[in-house]
Structures are given as C-alpha cells and as structure tokens.
C-alpha cells in the first residue's frame, strides 16, 4: 500500500492525458452513445458505446472489441464517459479481465473536461485493428458462486454500491452499502486518496480485507467502486460483475431492512 506508483493508479489526470494526446501515445476510448460522440468528443477519441460491450461480454467478444479499436497488448488505453466514471470503469475492467495491463480511467467526466475548456473535436480518427491476446485475470472477478462462499469469511467485505433505498429494500446478506455517489469528489470521478481512505477507515474496512463490489445489474456502479478501492491500493478487490440482478434470478438469499416505510421519505 505504501509503494503505489503512478503507473499503478487506475486513473490518469487531464494534464497528463493532454500531453499523451499530443504525443499520440495512447488509445482514447469514449463510451458514451454514438450520437453524443458525434456531437463532439475529446480529440483523438474513438467511440465504444457501452451497450456494445454489454451485448456480449465473453472474453472473445472483449478481445474482438479491443482489436477493432486498435488495442494491442502493449497499447496504453484511457477511457472516459459522462456518467460519473461508471461506464468507463466497466470498460477498463473488461480489458483488464482479458489481461490488458495498461488501461486507465480519465479522472474527470466529459462534461467536466469540457467545462475545463480542453480540446474537443468532431473528427473521427482512423483506426487500424490490432492483435490482442486473451490472458484471463480471474482474481478481479467474482461469480455468484464465489461470492456466496466468500461471504462466510470474516475478512471479506461485500459492498453494495446502489442507492440507499434500493439497498434497504433488498441486498445480499452481509453486504454493506456505499452508494456510488459517495465515491466522487466535487470535480473528479473519484475522491482524493485521503478522502477515500478516511471513508474506509470510518467504516472499519481494513487494508488487507478482500473486497467484492456489486450493484444493480451490469457492474458499472460497482465497477467505479472497484477502481475507488484500487485507487487507494487495496490489493484484493473483485467485481461481482453480474451483480444483484443475477443474484435474484438465481434465487439466492436476500436481506431487507424490516419494519420501516423508508420509501415514503423520498420525494421522488
């Protein structure tokens, strides 16, 4: 934990990214919808709507997507979105899952980038496809089966990243709730390291705990949480990528906060 270097950090700041864009030394991926991308994106970015990845997230499909985007095993990749970093987290995680070593999140959203006045373009860069291998990284993924066994272990912390009311209504037994909104700072997709460490310290989560994050259905919000944990150097974090939707479909046990009508406090 003490020895994390910048290259281990899952995020890259705007200043460094601008330099890399100039050097043309990275592959920049925009995971917003195609229309949004067409209206303007960070210079040199290519578009990968998240839906395309979610349509089939087998290792082979991810490999094909990477190759089509010109991402080889050695390519430095940076991903951004306009959804507080949750969609880009899911993409970076998928790349790392098939063994890609150098993929990072931009530490701001597209809107924040724009409001900083940085380069935007409507030009679509020409891409040559590349060759990418598959080298599955099983340590960063949790299945329902794995989670069910692991949660009996005292050193495992399951974190539900959905909003509080959804969590109160139903959650995986033993899970704690850190809503995804808690992970950001005012102007970045993630808190400062100090802020994040403080949150975990208050919650009594030790640095050597095994963490499993999950959210509603496809591992986006929990993907962001995965990188929030990685950003402070937690060594053992897994994403339960198919999340609560699968858990329910499998008819696994569910806990709820009983005897209170908390939904009626919401003004939604």
């Amino acid at each position, binding site marked *: 934990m003490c020895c994390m270097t910048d290259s281990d950090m899952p995020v890259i700041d705007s200043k460094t990214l601008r330099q890399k864009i100039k050097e043309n030394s990275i592959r920049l991926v925009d995971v917003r919808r195609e229309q949004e991308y067409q209206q303007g994106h960070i210079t040199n970015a290519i578009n990968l709507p998240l839906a395309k990845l979610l349509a089939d997230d087998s290792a082979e499909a991810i490999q094909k997507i990477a190759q089509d985007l010109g991402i080889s095993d050695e390519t430095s990749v940076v991903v951004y979105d306009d959804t507080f970093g949750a969609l880009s987290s899911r993409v970076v995680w998928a790349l790392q899952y098939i063994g890609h070593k150098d993929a990072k999140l931009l530490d701001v959203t597209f809107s924040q980038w724009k409001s900083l006045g940085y380069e935007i373009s409507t030009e679509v860069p020409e891409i040559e496809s590349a060759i990418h291998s598959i080298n599955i990284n099983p340590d960063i993924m949790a299945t329902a089966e794995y989670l069910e066994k692991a949660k009996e272990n005292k050193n495992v912390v399951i974190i539900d990243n959905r909003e509080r009311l959804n969590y109160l209504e139903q959650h995986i037994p033993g899970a704690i709730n850190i809503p995804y909104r808690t992970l950001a700072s005012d102007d970045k997709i993630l808190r400062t390291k100090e802020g994040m460490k403080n949150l975990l310290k208050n919650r009594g989560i030790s640095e050597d705990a095994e963490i499993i994050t999950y959210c509603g259905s496809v591992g986006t919000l929990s993907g962001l949480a995965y990188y929030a944990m990685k950003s402070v150097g937690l060594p053992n974090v897994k994403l339960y990528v198919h999340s609560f939707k699968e858990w329910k479909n499998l008819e696994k046990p569910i806990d709820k906060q009983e005897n209170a009508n908390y939904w009626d406090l919401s*003004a939604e």
Partner: protein
Amino acid sequence: MAQQLRPSKPADKKPKIDWSRRQEAEHFAETVKLFRQGKVDPDMFRRFRLQNGAYGTRMTDDYAMVRIKVPAGQVYPYQLEKIAQLSEMYSIGSAHFSTRENIQLHWVVLEDVSEIMQSLSDVGMTSREACGNTVRNVMCSPLSGVCKDEIFDATPYAMAIAKFMLRNPICQGLPRKFKFNFTCCEKHGMVRIVDVGLIPQIQEIDGEKRKGFKIFLGGGLGNRSFIGHQLEDFTPVEDLLYTSMAVIRIFDRLGDRKNLVRNRMRYLVNDMGWEKFQNLVLKERAIVKATQSVIVKLNVDETKNEIRRPISVSNDVASVPDGFARWQKTNVEKQSQDGFNSVFIGLESGDITANQLRSVAEIIRDYSAEGFARNGFSQNIVIRYVHDDDLKSMYSKLLESGLAKTGSLTMASAVGCSGTTSCNLALTNSHRLAKEVQRKFLELKLDEDDDLKDSTVKISGCPNSCGQHEIATIGFYGGGGRHEDNMFPNYTMSIGGRFDQGSMLGHHTARVPVKRVIPVILKIIELFKENKQSDDTLAKWIDRIVNGNESSKISSVEDIKKEISSLLIPPKVEDEPEFYMDYGSDTNYHTITGKGECAA
C-alpha cells in the same frame, strides 16, 4: 441599439455566522469507533450522539438521522447545494425540512455521520445540539423582516440567542430539550407552544421608544401539552439575555432529571403553578443581573441585509403559465416592502429531492433580492424579496422542477412527522398519510377555497406531537385499533387547535381508522359548508363549536362525532383488506416500536 450584455450573476451571499467547529467531526468518528469496539458505554454514547445532532433510526443501530440546525431558518444557496450532495452520498437522495426549521438527512450509516459533519463545516453549518438535552434550533418566523404586522425584525435577536447558547456550558446537560421561538407577529409564529416564545414589541418609556418582547414561558406539545404564559407586560431587549439565562438556570436546577417522560420545563411550570414560577424567574433574573461579574451581552448584529434585485430574467416569459393565478393566490404573500413578495414552496411532508434542492438554490440566486431562503414552520421553504415582475418567471422555473405545488398557505399543506418511515416511537405512517391528505386536497382544488384558508391539518405518528396535531384545526395522532382478530392503524382526531393569540389545544373527538381519515376530513368540511354563516371559515366554525358558541344544527363535538360515526365502523377483513393495512404497506398492520430518544 447595441445589444446589452447581461452581467453575470453576483457572487453568492455568505452568512454572517459560521456555526461549525471542524474538529467535532473527527471526535465524532473516533467516538463511534470506540463505541463499536465496546469501549464506550451505550448510554453515554447515545447522549454524545444526540448532542451532536445524530438521532436514532427505527429498529436499527446501524443508521442515524442527521439533523442540521438552521438558526432562524436562514439558509443560503450554496448550503442547499451541499445538502443536496450529502443526501445523495450518505442518505436517501432526498432531504427533509422539519417543523422546527431544521433540515434532516435520514438513514445515514452511523459511521458516515462524521463525513457529513465535516462537509457541513465547509459551508458553515452544524448539527451540534440539534437533538438531546440542549437548546434546540432557535426558530424565527420565516416572515420576520418582511411581515406587514411586525413591529421590528426579530431575526438578529434569534441569531444572537442561537449563537450565545450553542456550545455554551450552561446548556450542555439540561434536564430535557429546550426550545426558543421568535416570531414576527401573532399570526405567523408559534410562541405559546415552546419553552420560550417571543413577540417583538415597542413601548414608550419616559418618552423614548424602546424595543422589547412579549415573552411566553412553559408552553410545549407532547404526550401532555401546555400553552405558555406571558412573563410580564414588556421585556426590553436589554433584558432578553438575562431573562433567557434566568429561565434556563431555573430549569437546570429544578427540572425533573429522574422522570424522563415528564421532564420538559412545561411540567415544572405546571407542577409549581405559574405565579410561583413567574416570581422565581423575575427573582432569578435580578440575581443574574446583579451577580454578573463581567457584563455579558448578546451580540446582536442589526446591520441591514443588502437587498439587490438579481438581473431580471422576466422578459423571457411570453405568456402567463398555466396555473399561475392559483399558485399566486395560495403560495405568495405580499411583503411590507413595496413591490416584493414572499414565495412559499410547499413540499409533501417536507421532503425534497437532491435535484430539487439544487433548483431551489438556483432559484434563490435568480429571484431573491436578499440572496437566501428561510425555512418555514410547516415543512416548507420561503423565498423572500421576489419582485412583482418576476413572479411569473419564477413560477415557470418552479414548475420545471416540480416545486410549484399550490396550497402552501392553505389547509392543503398538511404536516406529517416522520412516522414509521424512520422513527422508533412511531405507531403509524403519519408521514405518508399527510402526503395523501395533501394530494386529495389539491386534486379537489380545496386549496382555492377561501373558507379553508386559515385551517390546518397536522398529523403525528404517535401521541408525542412531533407533527403538532394538537394545534391543528383538524389534528391526528397514530395508534393501533383492533376489530375481531385484526389490527388496523387508528388515529385519534382532535379539532379546534390554534397557535395564534387564542392558542388552545384541540379537543379529542373520535378515533378514526387510517383509511377513513380523508373521508372524515371531507365530511367535516361538508358539514361546515351546510351550516356555515356568511363570511365564515372552517377554523372559526370549529372554534365556535369547541367553545360552545355555535347554535346551528351542529353545535358540539358530540354532534360532529354522530355525523361521522358511520365512517368509523371497521369492515370485515375479507370485504376490505386494505382497511387493515397502513399506507405504504401491503401487509396487515401490527404495532411495533423501539426505544424513543426524545427523553434521552
């Protein structure tokens, strides 16, 4: 003509007082940790937690409610934006405006409370002494400073008292909570239902006009409620602090620290008798004055707030938006300042989403010439100093954010405490019931009915009066009823409560099953319409009935009871299963409560 550039918005106004103390957050986090490790006695921890504004939550030790104190209800746009963010990060994505001008965040993980406290420091706010046996949020009428009937603006005095009492050693361990309410006039405040209530007065003494207050002591609502007594004809402002200190000292010394269910100051006043208590206060005040080695003064800041109308955005509105007249009639009050208005934003039971909070902040910046808002007494927000010419434009902005609910100044804006949505003591979902009542009133357009304008509906989820049911024209508190083998939520209805100069508690009238509450209210309105005099209002009619001054067909509480009795009979469970369920629940009702913390 060259196009005129629109100047950018002026910077946010900043409050005069920073209520926060940053190191309290860290101390809180440390203490929570020790408590979880079993190193702090649970009772001690509870007192500490409450002192810091974190209240317990229904049926769980994992969560707390954080009550953010807003002295005099004065809140700034950037503070609302911070609260919006905190509600999304640590709470349920909505915040709650209380009847005592606090803003509450519910279902906060206890371990996250310190993070909220930390962030509140960033915007000069605190939750310190918002709960527990302390001087609670010092209230002031949301119309103080703009009310047509006020003699002078009490706000600087409310702020000064709040500042003096916060973290003051004399009020860290009172026998029980202690409440101050300042008002502008008789109509807009609730001075007779709190420990110390104050109405501004001016009296000519030796040819000199002197500011002062009418002070009321020993009122309060709860399991047993009392109306406050006026201390003396006139208390000059110079004596405000001494009088307050004298009262607190007496309460601290003589208040009941053993019997937790009847230890508010009103019980002391009642047990001792008013005259004796009154003498004691006057004597104590003389002692406080005489023995003060250093002259202690309230720091009253009466510099005028800058009133600067924001750049007009009004010419953007081409036509009168739909519903504007109804909204203006039921939500807007003319100010004593020519051309300006106070706009009431009604919320359902005080709830507001994070995005709506952000909209309110933006609307304050765009439309309020004083640059802040005031929380109201009825779970609402008041934006003041809105220019006549800007009302239409502001209305369309409120509409866009779902904040243009009509009827804020009418009977339609029912008050409901948090009930079973979060409170340990609650027996029923009073919070949701108040929302249902409001929705029905608006659906039937009863907010437009002038006969109902000065009436109120207030609902508590148990007998403890957080929903202030006893001062409502029609009030309810929750309990359980049984028919054959089944339980159902059953409310006790009282009528004729008032909180103005004729303050009185409502008369218990009947027990009303939850699913009959709305039909019973509508039936009472119908009876009123059949029997009213010209120029009558529902509140006046009920007032005559409960005081034996009504001579028409319905002349007593018993008569009303008779008329509604057919509505009160429980149906068979198979004929109407919903009768046996509370609002917001799809299972049969049963009572369940935890330990209350009001008396902690």
